[in-house]
């Protein structure tokens, strides 16, 4: 890799004297794209390292290649495609969307929904949510239930709960 005059000028403009950047980036955008890409592409030969972290010769080659592709004006996606065409989906740390990899995204989403549903069901109806005196309120309802002539002892608790909810609704109508 050569160090062009352009690179020295670029570096000097940032206040650096004598040390050149290893690569002559045309712009700061190009620099950040370069670092982003070498961090998300996997080195094909290494033990699970990205191109940035690996000292393997193939990683060095691919970094050089990536840099020249950027220089030639390839877009990020074109560079990813270039690498995948040669080394397979293996080199992408974020696998492309296919009918298999869909599971990677859908399963966590599904689990989140299911657990939300479970919590919703376990916490019961959001009754009394806005009522800070709910406890007090509910006990009043129970008294009401007993007064209505129902034998709570013989009832299943959840049936009682349902009944309370019903009474609560009528009670609100009364208000």
């Amino acid at each position, binding site marked *: 890799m050569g160090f062009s005059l352009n690179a020295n000028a670029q570096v000097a403009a940032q206040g650096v004297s004598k040390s050149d950047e290893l690569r002559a980036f045309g712009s700061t955008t190009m620099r950040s794209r370069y670092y982003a890409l070498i961090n998300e592409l996997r080195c094909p030969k290494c033990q699970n390292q990205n191109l940035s972290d690996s000292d393997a010769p193939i990683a060095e080659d691919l970094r050089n290649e990536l840099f020249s592709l950027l220089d030639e004006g390839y877009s990020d996606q074109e560079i990813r495609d270039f690498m995948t065409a040669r080394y397979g989906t293996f080199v992408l740390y974020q696998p492309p969307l296919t009918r298999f990899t869909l599971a990677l995204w859908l399963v966590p989403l599904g689990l989140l929904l299911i657990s939300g549903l479970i919590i919703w069901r376990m*916490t019961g109806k959001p009754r009394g949510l806005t009522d800070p005196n709910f406890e007090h309120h509910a006990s009043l309802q129970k008294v009401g239930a007993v007064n209505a002539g129902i034998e709570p002892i013989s009832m299943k608790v959840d049936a009682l709960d349902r009944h309370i909810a019903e009474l609560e609704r009528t009670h609100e109508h009364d208000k």
Partner: protein
Amino acid sequence: MISVIPEIGHLALLLCLPIATALAVLPMAGAAASWHLLQRSGPLLSSGLWLFLAVAFACLTYSFLHDDFSVVLVAQHSNTALPSYYKFSAVWGNHEGSLLLWVFILASWTLAVAYLGKSLPPDMHARVLAVLGGIAVGFLLFIIFTSNPFERNLISPPLEGNDLNPLLQDIGLILHPPLLYIGYVGFAVAFAFAIAALIGGKLDAAWARWTRPWTTVAWLFLTVGIALGSWWAYYELGWGGWWFWDPVENASFMPWLAGTALIHSLAATEKRGVFRSWTVLLAILAFSLSLLGTFLVRSGILVSVHAFASDPTRGMFILLFLAVTVGGSLLLYALRAPTIKPLATFKLLSRESWLLINNSLLAVSLAVVLIGTLFPLVMSALDLGSYSVGPPYFNKLFLPLMVLLMLFMGVAPYLNWKHNRLTPVLVRPWYMVSIVALGIAMLAVALLSQRYVTQWRFGAFITVALSSWLLLMTLTHAGLKARRFASAKNSSAWQGLASLSRSYWGMVVAHSGIAVMALGIGLTSSYSVQKELAMSPGAVADVAGYRFVLEKLEDVKGPNYSATIASFGVGRLSDGTLVKGLPIRLQPEKRFYYAAKNVMTEAGIHGRLTRDLYVSLGDSLEDERWAVRIYVKPFIRCIWLGALMMAAGGLLVVIDKRYMPRLPVRTDAPSDTVASKEQAVV
């Protein structure tokens, strides 16, 4: 003269097998048949197991320290030139030795349960020890039949050893595996309690109370172990990364997530008798995931920087062990766990509900890590192609989950058990805290963006706002709680603070730790500056407001390596001029290890809480120039500081008065009618 020490060690190891088998069988049988003599045999057998394993471990250590290359393991992983502290850590810097350490730690936990758990009901105590004995049997079989550390080569012992992998020649790696194993294996205790409770049919609040302190201790060791591993990767691998979502890292992170969920859900089970099936499942899961990690690292089915060399017989053996332990316990769970749903549904704004939300988020996070780790393996197994799942995937899913978790975490302390309302005091800090947090975030991001980059970083703003919000919410709660106590008792604010229980402080410190860690993660990923330069002696580089001057390069000889050391002088810049000269010295090295013929990079790091300066030396280029990587990483230390705070929080919880050993176990746990009904079903 040929030493017999390895033979003594081998013999001790072999003798462990019958002892562990007896431990697995006798107390369990005693508990089943109510035969008290057998039921009480656990502590004695545990002591025997520990003693013989200690002998075996000591013998292996002796062989390493005395360079006994007739022991194959020593010849493969040590060297006469290796400094003696690395000879010591080399004992577990390999597959066989680390397994011996694993089982030795298991025996130590078993011993601790045997003697500290004497206040448990005798049948429960016996069953717990038996389950731990059973696990020991599995691992001993594995060591003895597939991974004997004492294998010898007496016919032609080499004169010199192969040396320890240079990556492992490091202080962090002396401590990292033992801490990690103490955590992993510690979950075996929670696991044993869960199995014992399932067998005994007594899965109540008392069970949760006994399990809690053991789980917390294991969790805090695992926390420190993972943090240390991350720190090691940061300074030893030479590229400034601290977490890579590598399968082996994930393997240690999954039990941690399960353990974190477990310590929270145990609280609900203990205090309110709820979520029992879920809690017992988590206890099984935490340890199962530890075993899964062991399998992944040693089976040879994946490629990682951290994996051990492996052979297929080992993989098959661990798989078999996994099937028996995990499959068996999950089957037991399916058959015996209580099924009745709590009839008393709890309210949305109660602490129970929010613990459930916390657990759900942690469980989904765990699922993300598990799926991401296993996906490439599943694809390979079905021959559907070669995939990698790495940081871009995990970060995308993990970060939103963590944001949610932190939001819930901030409010959770303000909620009460059972009641469906926020503590009235919440209303006051809520707005204030949120406004202050937003203000801090604006200010911090404005300052940092000006300092490190020109543009405004939205991600950083969110992290600072969220972290300071969580921190303030947590601390405000402590303050309000102390004030309420002080005004009730007419005492000073300090007395009020001192009156709060240690376990409450544990929560405050651990949750603050999360905030600090999130701050570190957010800021370091938003503002880190990385430059790759070609520098010759005398060259100057200005990076992110610091001037780095390469003063000289020199060749140095270490005990078992030769190195090129670069000396950098670094100083702060203000308007392009140095403020106080070059007060900071950084000395990155490039080492060549003779025995392993291996080149290693040692980074030069100068750390402050607010930023790390990190220089690593690359290859030598033409005309005396060297490739140099310079990083400035703001607030990266907060990541490990946060982890240490979490562990400290765990420690505070454990030393809370109510968990101190030798206190009689209270049996007035809230076993309401629902609980007794469930027991009847079990």
